[in-house]
């Protein structure tokens, strides 16, 4: 009457699904699995590391390419050299694009964090779920629609036939044409980095102790002083984290200067593409990529270090 039982302790005449489960249990109990069990986590994480390693290898090939001379006429790579870097750095166009990228990177990061603080305070403290969900939707949907839809939106909003020119025209104010200027690029960049700043600030906002603000008020502090001396210091580390993330995203921005800048206000990302694909000089493109990577990494490290520096000073 009793059918044979397998690994899971179930009768042998069960369905395919359970047979699969029992097969997996048998596999887990097999000698090889038992012997290699302690390496299990390594095996699980290894495919991810291998895949990301492909990106690291790709960056390595860029660096390798950039460290060789290049004959642009013949299109051939020559000897090991650092001349591509000196050529890129000595290019007046590179200097202009570099200064523009760095200046806009820090400016847009500051504006984005300046907007993200009140936004995350409202998002984190609202008791109405509908308000929270609406703000989250407004925050994330433009990001998820991608660079092209976002920049297309800005092109239509800022165009001479767009709503801003029309509204300001009705008020008797001539709205300037912003497409092709740093204003348009800045607006686009702030829009794309703002969600990152809010995501980083939100956990700290949720950890804020409201009693401290109440205590400051009972001691006579005005709202501005309460914010500056009580709320903001508690958000300091997160602010620097958000600033670092916005810096990294802003400096690496490609679509906004490409589309909203109309090719006349390029960033380093556009310079890189021009060198690589338009001019066909892969070594100079590789050199620009490495310079960008160093700038982003050093900038992030410097901003985070600055945040920690203040913490240490206060602690002393």
């Amino acid at each position, binding site marked *: 009457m009793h059918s044979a039982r397998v690994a899971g302790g179930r009768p042998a005449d069960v369905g395919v699904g359970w047979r699969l489960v029992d097969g997996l249990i048998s596999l887990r109990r097999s000698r090889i699995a038992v012997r290699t069990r302690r390496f299990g986590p390594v095996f699980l*994480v290894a495919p991810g590391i291998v895949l990301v390693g492909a*990106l690291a290898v790709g960056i390595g090939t860029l660096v390798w390419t950039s460290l060789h001379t290049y004959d642009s006429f013949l299109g051939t790579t020559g000897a090991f050299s650092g001349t591509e870097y000196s050529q890129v750095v000595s290019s007046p166009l590179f200097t202009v694009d570099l200064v523009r990228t760095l200046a806009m990177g820090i400016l847009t990061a500051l504006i984005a964090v300046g907007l993200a603080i009140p936004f995350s305070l409202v998002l984190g403290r609202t008791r109405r779920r509908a308000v929270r969900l609406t703000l989250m939707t407004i925050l994330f949907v433009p990001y998820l629609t991608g660079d092209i839809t976002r920049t297309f939106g800005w092109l239509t909003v800022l165009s001479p036939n767009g709503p801003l020119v029309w509204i300001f025209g009705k008020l008797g104010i001539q709205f300037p044409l912003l497409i092709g200027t740093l204003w348009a690029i800045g607006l686009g960049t702030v829009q794309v980095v703002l969600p990152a700043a809010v995501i980083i600030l939100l956990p700290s906002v949720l950890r804020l102790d409201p009693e401290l603000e109440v205590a400051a008020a009972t001691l006579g502090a005005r709202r501005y002083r309460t914010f500056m001396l009580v709320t903001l210091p508690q958000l300091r580390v997160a602010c620097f984290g958000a600033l670092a993330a916005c810096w990294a995203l802003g400096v690496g921005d490609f679509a906004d200067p490409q589309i909203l800048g109309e090719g006349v206000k390029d960033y380093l990302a556009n310079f890189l*593409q021009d060198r690589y694909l338009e001019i066909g000089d892969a070594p100079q493109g590789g050199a620009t990529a490495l310079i960008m990577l160093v700038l982003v990494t050093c900038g992030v490290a410097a901003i985070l270090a600055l945040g920690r520096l203040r913490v240490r000073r206060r602690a002393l």
Partner: protein
Amino acid sequence: MKRVRRLSFPARPILTAFAVVLLALPTSFVVVASFTKGIEIVFPPHGLTFHWYLAVVRNAATWHALLNSVHVALVAVVIGIAVGLPAALALPSFRPRRRLLLLLLLSLGLSTPVIVSAFSFFSLFSKIGVLSHLTVVGLALGIVNLPFMLWPIISALEDQDPELPAAAATLGADPVEQFLFIRLPLMASGIVTGAVFMFVVSITDFVVSEVLTTVNDQTLPVFIYSGLRANISPSLGAASAFFIILATLVFILVLRIGGVERFLIRR
């Protein structure tokens, strides 16, 4: 609570409203532009029409580009699940420092400027001779967007009651059964959230696709970009509106699952 709100930053509503306008205005206007009558986008519109949507639906090139986008996004999602799920499961087993290091390594795609990642793949793929295949574009996007898969799964894992597998074990469940019938269903929201996020950020990707695709296998964002360089027409608005609808639907789905809200609003 009311008192705290009164004490808060006075310019907060104004700045928040400004941020809302900055975020929502361009996206909203894409939708308005897509219904504009006439070949030029003007405000206020001279009339409303569905003509541009019909034109986009009837355009074979748009469908081709859309299918290419779906192809790369699906490849990215499959890679994300195949690689991200085991990695997310394994990460808690490592010591905190190693875990952080591994997480940073796995997030390399997002921490590197996208244009640098794109040209790194371009350089690598051209060297091994696999450039201009849509599947490798998907592979590149899977690597770049891997954190979008990892974070929701890690978040779902952290939300799990650590006592549950032990409770199942006392009832005789094998570790395989504990994983399949307890941990996996509890992680499902994280996996679905990660998968849909990864699908959307991959289907809407512009930078990696622009560098890695050719004229013959353009994805939809690259196809729209080619049109943008020629003329800003309402038909591009209709094609862009597809991404807005997709992103909105996906975000509503993710909100219903609860993954994003739980991930962001965790105290």
